[in-house]
């Protein structure tokens, strides 16, 4: 597989002297119409990559904000199929690269080969699956690779260098570095340990690193002195959209971070 579009997007941001921005929005949130409007808003206000959340009934890695949004989407009938169909039916592609983030079971039930094929057709560049560690990831990774899509792995503060080396052999696109030993959701402070761990991860993985879980304000990134190539924000953005304000307004705060 050539250099993933995901890697290219983050490298381009770096070349322009900024941290790449990766907003996360659950598919179909806050409703089925506004979701596509918010996607447009994110796309035209500086998102380099957009993560679309695929709802699941039992989201074990998520905090209360993402879980509540995800369960609301399920109640509104949002499925992996709905997201793929929506992407396919758009007349033009987003400028930002699209990544789907969700738990493994809905992808497994869709059928891994069928999913990879439909996702490629829908213009998706990769997947992030929080409950799929390296040991269980080969079937999806291989199905995606056949269609040129990347399986983006997550590592964290407790991933030792030896495990980072194992991930380095199979990682593609970028690597998602989870900044807290916890679930998604904003935190007041980033642990001091992060900087050291991020540095080791960058050296071992050889791919751009996106920092996520806990991000609330651009100041948190500045404190890390450019160690993170990209920033993912979910809970803070969801809370913003939930209050009725447009996603693009939220993005403006992060531009130039």
């Amino acid at each position: 597989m050539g250099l993933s579009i995901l890697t290219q997007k983050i490298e381009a941001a770096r070349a322009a002297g900024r941290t790449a921005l990766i907003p996360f929005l659950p598919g179909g949130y806050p409703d089925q119409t506004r979701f596509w409007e918010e996607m447009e808003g994110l796309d035209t206000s500086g998102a380099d990559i957009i993560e679309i959340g695929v709802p699941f009934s039992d989201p074990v890695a998520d905090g209360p904000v993402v879980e509540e949004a995800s369960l609301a989407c399920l109640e509104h009938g949002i499925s992996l199929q709905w997201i793929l169909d929506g992407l396919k039916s758009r007349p033009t592609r987003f400028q930002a690269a699209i990544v789907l983030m969700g738990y493994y079971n809905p992808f497994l039930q869709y059928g891994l080969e069928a999913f990879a094929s439909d996702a490629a057709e829908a213009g998706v560049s990769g997947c992030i699956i929080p409950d799929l560690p390296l040991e269980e990831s080969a079937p999806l990774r291989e199905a995606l690779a056949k269609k040129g899509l990347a399986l983006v792995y997550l590592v964290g503060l407790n991933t030792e260098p030896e495990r980072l080396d194992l991930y380095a052999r199979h990682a593609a696109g970028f690597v998602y570095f989870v900044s807290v030993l916890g679930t998604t959701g904003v935190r007041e402070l980033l642990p001091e340990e992060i900087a050291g761990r991020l540095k080791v991860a960058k050296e071992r993985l050889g791919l751009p690193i996106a920092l996520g879980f806990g991000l609330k304000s651009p100041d948190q990134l500045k404190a890390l002195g450019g160690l993170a190539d990209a920033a993912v924000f979910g809970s803070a953005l969801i809370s913003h959209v939930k209050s009725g304000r447009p996603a693009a307004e939220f993005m403006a705060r992060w531009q130039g971070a």
Partner: protein
Amino acid sequence: MHKGYFGDYGGMFVPELLMPPLLEVEKAYEEIVPTKSFQDRLNQVLRDFVGRPTPLFRCPNLSAELGFDLWLKREDLAHTGAHKINNTIGQGLLAKMMGKTTLMAETGAGQHGVATATAAAMLGLKSVVFMGAIDVVRQAHNVHRMKLMGCEVIPVHSGTQTLKDAINAALRHWISEQASTHYCFGTAAGPHPFPLLVRAFQSVIGREAKAQMLAATGRLPDTVVACVGGGSNAIGMFHEFVPHPEVEIVGVEAAGTGEPGCFHSAPLNVGTDGVLHGMLTKLLQTKEGQILPSHSIAPGLDYPGVGPEHAHLQAVGRARYESVNDSQALAAFSTLCRKEGILPALESSHALAWVLANRETIRPGSQVAVCLSGRGDKDMGIIAEAEAKGLM
């Protein structure tokens, strides 16, 4: 790759942040559990604190009526009233040797929560138990028991507010508290190594039953029967007999009300392959892969998944899995009370109900051993409700 699998089922489908603590438990399972010093200590506690061995009791009245010998493995006589204590004592001892200070658990009906709180109190560990908010109300008696033992009970308000959501909450809590806390998983399910670890501590049931049966009759039982929710009492009963092909193995799932549209708890009978709570197994789910709620009159069977080893034993044909509905279980409950003076848990009543329902097909003179996994005192509220509704 296939470490942690039973045939096609099992695995470790968890966030990377949980891999280090799971690998730590795996290492402890492999390096500490088999040692003589651990086994000696475990056996001593099982004898002096839990009250093992539990008896294997031949039901005199029912055996005469049925025309075959009905034996009950009396886990209801273990401390705290169910087999759950075998596992929590084992994991509690292990957690101490791993240097952990807190035992954390999920609970549905509260039996595993009580057993965890009990083991923690005796071993000088802290205990934290996650319980669905609906279960906290339904099982107030067990919540009280846990609190009396110094346990912190945390109600879970997300999702269906029952066992599956309590497991989600416990997994989340473990991510942040992994340095100090051992997750004392309550059944032979979840991510590797829990199915193996729980089996290691529950298989004492079958080991004792086999020795007791040989001592009493000079032969192995023809059939062993146990109820299956997550499947810990069942795998504990079955494991010793799996290598003996002449012993028939029957697991009994809960069919709920049996009415159309009932959310039952029988994934082995009607579920499909999928991933939940860290394992690939049989699940109640939609075709899009969303987990469906379950239902049974027996709270301990009320779970949309099942331990992966049961899915494997079914796939290879070594065990078969049947189902029994709420009213059959209630009838078996009454029968055992009246005929033998034993008040069984509604979960265990499912296993007994299968035997009673299949009395015609069981060969006269057979030896049938049922795991009576717990006592029914905890179910008195449900029984009173069923009586009031005229279901009994």
